[in-house]
């Protein structure tokens, strides 16, 4: 059993490759995903796959988000396992009817006679491209019954959770943060984080419906996902110098949500800070905060607090974007306030 150092893009590609080898029903559909000599999708994830699997299984489409998602739904109804890609996560809104009215509801409406085992991959997160190429949209999908929502923060999780999502018989919205893809073998993002880690060579699944405790601590529980996990860990380092010991939990799967693990953490630390890159109002943090307020009320020594992006569209200028996206400093300040009372 060997492993390789992989970026997240490589890990995702590896997952797709292994899944497609294992089951001929898995196929990829999206814009610029299979073109020979092309990009390999929005962010190189599908690069080279059409060489091995051909252009029918790595299917390029016109610019037709409604049709991309709709066709994925239709193919899923026949028993295929499509992995559809939106070139930028923001484009999913062009095809939202197919996600919300169709994919999410078909199993329920048909009394389980039909299911929609598709994965919809969305590159998300602010990356200096402006308001229509930057949104983190978890909240829309968390709010929709019938969808699962996954948002990994590192290569190991990404591969394991993509495989689990492909084998799941339900529509899974799979969010990938642009600044976490990694610079190797393709386009490198400015200010990207490019986490690289040892990832097992073979196929493995990380079950959906789990969160990961990235750092143990006793003074406060910080909940975060995707890029914000890394910011939170940085903040925890700084805070440990001040004698504040933060526990950081990677909420890598929002639906289904492992609230039990989070509750145990909160009971231990008595304080919660949620760090999210989506807009404050109605973000996933609001939902988790409400659930914790109900379940863990008598263990709270401080108000449940969120550090999120302000309720504005994502600005483009670097300095404005850096104000929009929650920073390490903002997290540190928020934690200090909560711990000191």
């Amino acid at each position, binding site marked *: 059993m060997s492993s390789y150092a992989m970026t997240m893009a490589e890990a995702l590609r590896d997952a797709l490759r292994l899944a497609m080898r294992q089951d001929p029903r898995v196929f990829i559909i999206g814009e610029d995903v299979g073109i020979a000599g092309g990009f390999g999708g929005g962010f190189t994830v599908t690069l080279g796959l059409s060489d091995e699997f051909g252009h029918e299984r790595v299917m390029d489409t016109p610019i037709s988000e409604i049709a991309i998602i709709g066709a994925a739904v239709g193919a899923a109804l026949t028993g295929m396992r499509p992995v559809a890609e939106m070139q930028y996560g923001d484009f999913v809104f062009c095809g939202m009817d197919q996600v919300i009215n169709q994919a999410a509801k078909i199993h329920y409406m048909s009394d389980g006679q039909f299911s929609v085992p598709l994965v919809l991959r969305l590159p998300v997160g602010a990356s200096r491209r402006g308001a229509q190429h930057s949104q983190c949209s978890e909240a829309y999908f968390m709010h929709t019954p019938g969808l699962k929502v996954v948002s990994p923060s590192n290569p190991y999780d990404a591969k394991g959770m993509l495989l689990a999502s492909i084998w799941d018989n339900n529509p899974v919205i799979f969010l990938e943060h642009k600044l976490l893809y990694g610079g190797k073998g393709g386009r490198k993002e400015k200010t990207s984080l490019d986490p690289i880690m040892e990832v097992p060579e073979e196929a493995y699944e990380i079950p959906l419906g789990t969160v990961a405790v990235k750092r143990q601590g006793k003074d406060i529980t910080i909940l975060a996902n995707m890029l914000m996990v890394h910011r939170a860990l940085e903040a925890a380092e700084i805070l440990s110098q001040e004698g504040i010991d933060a526990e950081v939990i990677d909420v890598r799967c929002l639906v289904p949500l492992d609230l039990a693990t989070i509750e145990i953490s909160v009971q231990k630390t008595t304080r919660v800070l949620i760090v999210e890159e989506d807009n404050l109002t109605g973000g996933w943090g609001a939902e988790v905060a409400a659930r914790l307020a109900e379940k863990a*009320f008598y263990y*709270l*020594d*401080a108000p449940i607090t969120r550090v999120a992006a302000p309720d504005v569209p994502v600005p483009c200028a670097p300095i404005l974007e850096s104000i929009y996206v929650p920073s390490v400093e903002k997290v540190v300040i928020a934690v200090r306030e909560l711990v*000191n*009372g």
Partner: protein
Amino acid sequence: MIFEIVIPNLGATGSDVVIDDWLVRPGDYVEAGKPIYVVSTDKATVEVEAFRNGYIRELLVEPGTRIPLGTVVALITDSPDLRVDGFPDNNLNELTSSHDVGQIERPEKWVGESGNELGMRRILASPLARRLAREARIPLENIKGSGKQGQILRRDVQQAIDSQHLSKSIFPGVGSEGRVVSVPVSGMRRSIVQRTQLSKSDIPHYYASVTIDMSEAKAFLLETKAFAEKKGWSSPTITDLSIRAAASALRQSPQINASFQGEEILYYEDIHIGLVIGLPEGIQVPVIHHADRKSLYTLAAITDRLKEKAKTGAFTSQDLIGSTFSISNLGMFGLDSFIAVINPPEAGILALGAVQQIPAVWNDQVVPRWRMTAVLSVDHRVVDGIVAARFLDEFRQLLEHPVVLSLTAPEENSE
């Protein structure tokens, strides 16, 4: 303007009460003093009056609902047309929470008894702190909050628990050879526990005592009694005389008719004297309002009525609130003297011993005289030694020359 009608401190227990009945409907005009609802405490069923004139705007609590003191139960406006939109929520939300709160008691609220407001002051504490304090049986009002908003946090409760353990460990455990009966602290006892604990831990008590020659007073009371019996009035007692004298003495030493409030001291213009009445299960302290304005016969009538009410448990809320000074008389048990605990947030309490006949030096001769010892406890933050001494001196002089306390017929309407 809209005002809240809030369940006042009914004195008896300090915990939850139940509204039995509303005596008014929305739209009714009420005058201050008119009873507007009936409420049951652990001890008594009490009619509560309106404390201001106005129009009943809205009734917020259903009869039969159990609610903590301090709950806003109705709204009253001084103009009949005022709408009630956007009025802040009260703590009734706790009752309708989806969470099962069956095992968790209501948090207790501190009662502010200044003469000005009859509302409640909230204690800010985190949910965790409240729970820990409740489990440790430490009243929140005994814990100082270290949070920025003054809120009590877990660390504050932990500190309070630690210091408790410290004091507990000083006393060796008692080996129980005989049968031990455990009685939970609740109701009136709980209230007494809390109030005396608070009083003794917060207030620096200072004591002064005086022995008073009561021979003139006794003779005086015989005469007043004869007259009262002829008139069919209540007969004044030593206690009534003492109340009258204390009220006058307070007029002379107004610094004692006060309350310590942390950053300020409140000096009350009106004199309301609380009279400690002992009951089988504890004590109650009904109030004689404006004691300085009441004639002796009026006082006699009032105290008679209060003693009756104490026996039947029929105090109204007005009876139990607003005292600015208290008097306790244990003379009937033959005590020479005793030292009373100040009734917070007052600044003084007078403890009266028995009136006893003893040999005394009077006009250079040794003759039998009647004597009574009075002990004054004061809050030294508010009352210095000299003030206490002057008060006691005045008190003594008035009792030794009781004619000075003017006599008038009892008023028809004694309140």
